[in-house]
């Protein structure tokens, strides 16, 4: 290809450019991102030896279920909201959507229990927990608006019941659960976006901090050196940022 030489020229001087533009916002953002998540940390091929339990599988199962939820939801979106009421294939896709949501919540809750009993927030991992909790709450809202968007008896009943709770908070003035168009928009645009961003941040935080090491067996007490290590610089992550 003829463009080879042209393409090469900007990369040849890359180190120089980096140094020169270190104050540039784009360069700063890029460098901060690389510092926070160098490629080996973002996509590791090793993990600590203590990660040896089936409980660790439920995080990735939750993500996999979320992927199925999104894909089946996209198929429903492509064909429009009426499709699944009139087409056997549409109903089949709706069923996939329902069961992937039920699976998603089941896996997520087991993941939550596991993370709790491992006290997975220890050592600067508190924000990871916080975003996980946000992901759960945002998912509850997304599922709720999904139930409201079904256009069947279920939606009617859930809407007319839920309005009292939402109205009592004052939110009913702008978030009208009896307004199908509004609920559909929340369900297929706003809330999936929120869940996606929150889950994305949660996963990046897990990659950044790694999975939490086990409790030392002689807790409670002062930080021990990792058993068997030479005792140097056991970097106890005390407090710092959350």
């Amino acid at each position, binding site marked *: 290809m003829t463009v080879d030489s042209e393409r090469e020229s900007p990369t040849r001087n890359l180190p120089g450019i980096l140094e020169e533009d270190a104050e540039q916002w784009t360069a700063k953002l890029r460098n901060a991102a690389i510092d926070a998540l160098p490629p080996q940390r973002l996509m590791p091929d090793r993990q600590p*030896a203590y990660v*040896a*339990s*089936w*409980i660790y*599988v*439920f995080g990735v199962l939750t993500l996999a279920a979320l992927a199925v939820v999104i894909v089946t939801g996209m198929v429903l979106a492509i064909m429009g909201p009426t499709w699944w009421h009139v087409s*056997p*294939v549409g*109903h*089949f896709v709706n069923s996939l959507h329902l069961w992937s949501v*039920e699976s998603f919540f*089941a896996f997520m*809750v*087991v993941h939550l*229990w*596991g993370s709790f009993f491992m006290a997975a927030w220890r050592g600067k991992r508190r924000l990871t927990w916080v975003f996980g909790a946000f992901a759960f709450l945002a998912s509850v809202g997304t599922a709720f608006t999904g139930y409201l968007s079904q256009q069947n008896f279920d939606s009617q009943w859930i809407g007319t019941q839920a309005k009292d709770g939402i109205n009592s908070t004052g939110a009913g003035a702008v978030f009208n659960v009896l307004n199908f168009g509004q609920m559909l928009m929340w369900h297929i645009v706003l809330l999936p976006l929120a869940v996606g961003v929150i889950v994305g941040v949660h996963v990046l935080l897990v990659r950044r901090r790694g999975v939490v090491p086990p409790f030392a067996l002689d807790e409670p007490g002062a930080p021990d050196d990792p058993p068997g290590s030479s005792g140097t610089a056991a970097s106890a992550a005390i407090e710092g940022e959350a």
Partner: protein
Amino acid sequence: MSVIAAVSQFVLGALFDLNRPGHYVHWGFIQLSVANLVVIGIMIVLFVAAILIPYRREGGDR
């Protein structure tokens, strides 16, 4: 053609009809549908199993 019809009938229709009237358990003031109870039971079983079943790692360490 009839084979395709039979297969699609099998795939697109439900093997078990869950549209019949539901079953519920009452336990003091607690009322749960059997379906929800099964789901919650499965979650607890998954959690306990995930903790108790030994984890065998493929490939070994290092």
